[in-house]
């Protein structure tokens, strides 16, 4: 086994090999007669462009014991560290005040050679120029930079992908010295050259650096026209410029001749506002606050990427070092929303409040005839405990009821109203173009969301017990959707206004203070959330709407719910009258794939419950948060793929002792069979299910090799085999703080001093999912895909401490 397909079985990257019992086998890290390693297979002429393997130079491998290499992810990951330091100053005089603060964050990731630094400076102040005119300003500057961020997801650039396909005999430490002998810069060293990159090589050579400057600032002036009227005008901008440099070294699987790439992202949002306010106490009971305002919002988001996908000289990351031509990509969406709005609050006796709003938006993204849209809202709240006498305040201290109705309109993204030709990558010198894939809707309308909610806020026993409960119901209409079309129609989607989707739910917060005295305080709160989603209507001629997915498809259909996951599964007995109804049907001992999409789960939880506690004793306080998520399903792509590659414990079932099984806790199939060549195997599985014999279902009795069984059963398309119940309970955060008594702080210089110990993700119980944290999400197309876990870097447990000083 030298990693180049010159040994037995090393052309593949799966783990079904002989038992790792220390038998002697030539391996990638075994020494050779020429003092090199087994994996140092490339000749020096490789530098000149030959693909050549030079086994004479390497020499003969001295076999070394074949043993389990340890959990690569555990060995590879390092302890991360995050330092956060903050200083702030503020001051004031009769005419104004200011505040300045500086925060420095310094993070070292758990994946080797990853980091993130962030410096934040913020300053704000206001000044009374005259009796009537006040100027305020606020500015934040945030600088983030990193020498390397790791790649997430499924693909050779992700280290978790490498570990999913890992050779179980490989000790990751044997790969630390990641260049082949005398080929530094040219050829990485690895245990398998056919599919994978060395994870150290990936993290130390193939870096993804970023530098981002962000400035958020505004300037406003408020003029008091009279005692009741005032006018505010404000201009502000949020601006960032992000610069990413991506390097790939020679011999990277995806970029054999290296790559250099720069991405530039320029974002700016400019807001101009005015607001005229009328505020008056009509009499000692009535109060009115009325406002009329306007806003112009312009957003520009420019993305530019330049790539040299082949380098002439290894290690020189510059565009002048390109072999061939540079590839460029850009997109420049821009949009604007103009708004006029009014809002008013009528108050009576500080206990009844009526809030009314009205707003009209004009968006540049909608067709002219539909680009203006109006949406109002109204809400009423009543503090019952002020209006009526409920007896002793010691029992019912406070009672409030509230209810409201609101509409919100929204537009869409820029550039969705035209059919066009996308200019593509040229073929050599020949430019290309292709027609747009989405059929636009020239009569697109804004989306309108209508919601109502009511709730109550009750406090008892001098606020020792509090209950805040809200019910809400939201219906979204005219949603702007890209409905899939078959490519045979010439387009792959068309944009429509459609659908009616309802979300309704309950949010309950219960606060209890069981103990409260001078020295000892215990505050406890429960946070309960429940949401039900239903697709009430889709468009007339649309039965299903697919809106994403990764492995599984997220599909909405009438009567279903957003969050429904659809996927493929195994062929099963569908006849409800059959005694074998629901059982897997085997063919030649193997499961069969059923390509029909069916609902395999829903990623939304049945409910979530958080329990937060703060216990204070004198100067010591302990805070901890427990989270419980009940229900919802998760598709684990990691599990499916790692099972295909024989890298999870499930796949030990049926393997002979010679091949790693049986495993504690996993029943041995106890089977043996003799193949056509007369060889007897103790390795075998008879799958649990039925098979078809003379048109009748009978229990499956065909034995197949364990690797054939598992490899086939957990193929990545068999979505149902990777579905888990995502229920979990975790101790998300705990914090122990010591406040230095003020008497110990000398002088007035230091007003407050405290030390905290902070831990996150300290404990986890998962009902069903045994391959990591069920909260992991996959990353696809630039955003997280809910309901799917796919080669994601594990969640981290962090331990830290904080010092807080106030001057």
């Amino acid at each position: 086994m030298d990693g180049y397909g010159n040994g037995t079985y090393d052309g593949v990257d799966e783990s079904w090999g002989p038992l790792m019992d220390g038998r002697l086998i030539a391996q990638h890290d075994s020494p050779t007669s020429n003092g090199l390693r087994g994996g140092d297979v490339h000749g020096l002429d490789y530098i000149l462009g030959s693909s050549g393997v030079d086994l004479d130079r390497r020499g003969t491998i001295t076999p070394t014991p074949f043993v389990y290499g340890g959990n690569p992810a555990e060995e590879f990951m390092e302890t991360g560290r995050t330092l956060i330091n903050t200083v702030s100053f503020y001051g004031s005089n009769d005419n104004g005040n200011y505040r300045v603060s500086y925060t420095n964050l310094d993070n070292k990731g758990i994946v080797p050679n990853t980091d993130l630094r962030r410096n934040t400076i913020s300053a704000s102040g206001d000044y009374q120029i005259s009796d009537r005119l006040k100027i305020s300003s606020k500015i934040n500057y945030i600088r983030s930079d990193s020498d390397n961020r790791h790649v997430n997801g499924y693909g050779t650039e992700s280290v978790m992908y490498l570990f999913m396909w890992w050779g179980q005999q490989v000790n990751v430490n044997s790969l630390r010295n990641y260049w082949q002998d005398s080929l530094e810069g040219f050829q990485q060293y690895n245990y398998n050259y056919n599919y994978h990159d060395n994870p150290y090589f990936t993290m130390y050579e193939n870096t993804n650096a970023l530098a981002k400057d962000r400035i958020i600032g505004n300037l406003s002036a408020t003029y008091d026209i009279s005692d009741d009227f005032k006018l505010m005008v404000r201009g502000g901008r949020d601006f960032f410029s992000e610069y990413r440099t991506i390097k790939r070294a020679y011999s990277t699987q995806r970029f054999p001749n290296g790559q250099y790439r720069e991405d530039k992202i320029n974002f700016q949002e400019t807001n101009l506002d005015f607001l005229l306010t009328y505020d008056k106490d009509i009499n000692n009971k009535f109060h009115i606050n009325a406002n009329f305002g306007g806003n112009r919002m312009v957003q520009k988001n420019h993305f530019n990427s330049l790539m040299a996908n082949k380098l002439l000289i290894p290690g020189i990351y510059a565009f002048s070092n390109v072999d061939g031509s540079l590839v460029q990509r850009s997109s420049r969406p821009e949009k604007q929303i103009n708004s006029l709005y009014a809002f008013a609050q009528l108050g009576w006796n500080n206990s009844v409040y009526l809030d009314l709003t009205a707003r009209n938006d004009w968006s540049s993204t909608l067709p002219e005839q539909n680009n203006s849209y109006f949406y109002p809202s109204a809400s009423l709240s009543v503090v019952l405990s002020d209006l009526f006498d409920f007896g002793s305040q010691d029992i019912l201290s406070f009672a409030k009821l509230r209810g409201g109705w609101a509409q919100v309109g929204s537009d869409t993204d820029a550039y969705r109203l035209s059919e066009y030709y996308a200019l593509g990558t040229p073929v050599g010198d020949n430019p290309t173009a292709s027609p747009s894939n989405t059929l636009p809707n020239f009569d697109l309308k804004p989306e309108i969301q209508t919601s109502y909610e009511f709730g109550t806020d009750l406090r008892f026993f001098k606020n020792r017990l509090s209950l805040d409960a809200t019910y809400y119901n939201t219906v979204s209409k005219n949603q702007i959707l890209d409905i899939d079309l078959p490519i045979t129609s010439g387009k792959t989607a068309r944009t429509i206004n459609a659908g009616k989707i309802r979300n309704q739910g309950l949010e309950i917060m219960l606060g209890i203070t069981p103990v409260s005295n001078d020295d000892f305080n215990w505050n406890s709160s429960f946070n309960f959330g429940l949401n039900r989603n239903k697709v009430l209507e889709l468009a007339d001629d649309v039965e299903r709407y697919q809106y994403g997915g990764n492995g599984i498809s997220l599909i909405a259909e009438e009567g279903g719910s957003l969050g429904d996951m659809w996927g493929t599964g195994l062929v099963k007995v569908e006849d409800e009258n059959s005694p074998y109804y629901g059982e897997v049907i085997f063919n030649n001992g193997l499961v069969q794939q059923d390509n029909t999409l069916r609902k395999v789960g829903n990623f939304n939880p049945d409910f979530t419950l958080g329990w937060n506690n703060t216990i204070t004793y004198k100067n010591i306080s302990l805070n901890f948060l427990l989270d419980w998520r009940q229900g919802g399903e998760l598709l684990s792509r990691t599990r499916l793929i790692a099972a295909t590659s024989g890298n999870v414990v499930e796949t030990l079932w049926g393997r002979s002792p010679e091949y790693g099984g049986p495993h504690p806790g996993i029943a041995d199939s106890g089977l043996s069979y003799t193949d056509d060549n007369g060889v007897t195997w103790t390795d075998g599985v008879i799958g649990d299910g039925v098979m078809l014999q003379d048109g009748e279902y009978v229990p499956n009795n065909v034995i197949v090799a364990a690797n054939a069984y598992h490899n086939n059963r957990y193929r990545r398309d068999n979505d149902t085999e990777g579905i888990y119940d995502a229920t979990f309970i975790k101790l998300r955060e705990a914090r122990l703080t010591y406040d230095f008594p003020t008497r110990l702080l000398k002088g007035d210089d230091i007003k407050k001093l405290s030390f905290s110990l902070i831990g996150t993700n300290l404990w986890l119980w998962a009902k069903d999912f045994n391959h990591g944290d069920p909260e992991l999400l996959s990353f696809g197309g630039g955003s997280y895909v809910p309901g799917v876990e796919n080669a994601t870097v594990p969640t981290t447990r962090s331990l830290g401490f904080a010092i807080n000083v106030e001057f």
Partner: protein
Amino acid sequence: MKKIFLIATVFAMALWSCDKFDVSNDNPDVALNIDKNPELLLTNLQRTSIREAVGGSWSEGNLMGQYGARIVFTSFDLFDWGDQSGAWNNYYYAIRDAKELEELANENELKSYVAVSKIMQTWAFSILTDMWGDIPYSEVNLAGEENYTPIYDEQEEIYSSMLSELEAANTILASSDLTQIKGDLLFDGDLDLWRKFANSLRLRLALRLSEVSPGTASNVIAEIYENPGRNPIMESNDDNAALTFLAANPDAHPVTEESVYRVGSYNEYRISEHFVTMLEGLNDPRLEFFADPTANSVEEGIPEIVGMLNGVVDGPAYTYQGGDAFLSKFNIDYFYFQPNANQARLMLYSEVQFILAEAAQRGWITADAQSLYEEGIVANFEYWDVELPADYLTSPGVAYDNSLETIMTQKYINLFYTDYQGFIEYKRTGFPATIEPGPDAFYDVYPSRFEYPSNEESLNNANYTEAANRIGGDQITTKVWWEN
């Protein structure tokens, strides 16, 4: 002062013109019109469809035709063919572009592009219908006219339309006032070669009807063969419809190191035992060109070529014959390490000779079947640059014996690594008779077609269902019309 301020404020608000924008809603990075540059579509559609044909021949066609077999992930080889929506989509994308090109060319009176578009469309449609049976044909590309669900046309009608489209292209290309075309990856703008390809493709499609409609097949072939002035066909390897990729990524051959196809993936595919046995039986030196000796035999100094058995389940598959090192790869230097040595073969001159040889053998044209057959063999050796042994044409199994099987054996070798053609011709004729389901295959009969893509099932359900019922069920074992 107060009043002035209020009036000024109201005035300012009035000026706050709400339906005027400082930004445009037109994307600056796309073209709204390419009337003057139809070649942009031509290049794009050629790239899409030809790369698909090459990728499909490597990863599916070679397995279905049992030229190659896999040592891992063998489920495809067990006839778990999936819905092949990637191939379906890519051919339909190319057809979409070709239809737009045709429309653009008609509007702007650029008839050479009309002809070229018809030929490319027909080539892509023929692969689709041969592999799926009834397919959307007459109503494709009508989303702009609010037809989102094209009907599936019957294969019989599709074939008749494809033949007349090619004839129309031939007629257009016969005229004297043709405009030059640009952006042509296949023939670099040589319209004579396009015309020869059109008529040669007509021969291929006509022959496909040999079992179901021999009358049409013989009429079309005879009409072409007997009127070479009106219907020029390929006359030498110089006329091949074969694309040479560029030397550098991203335009190199897709299954090469240069295109960053992983060597591990390449090594999953081996030359098949079936193909090795056939070529060894014929003492055919093309074997040594197509395949490398096994790693183990080279190490031991006695190089030999050993093929992988098709249709073995994962597990036993990668221990077959002793495993990886004991099985031959396809010539890795030529097919993998060289960025563009391997061409994309749409159709070769040698195939035309085998078509004519068969037509002569069946008595459809008056010609010497043997010399056409031998010319096909000679041309194919010449194409691969393999020296033809002096006694090859007279050796057992090769020497012409007036049987279809002998012609088909050579035609099969000729169709290696050419989209799905080797498999399709096997379906038509039953030759090579040595092709059979592997030991662990899911079906005892050799499948005929791909299942329709699940997207069609979900997005074009009524038409899909009608077509599935009409052809006798959407299974891979359902025969297409011309097989019946």
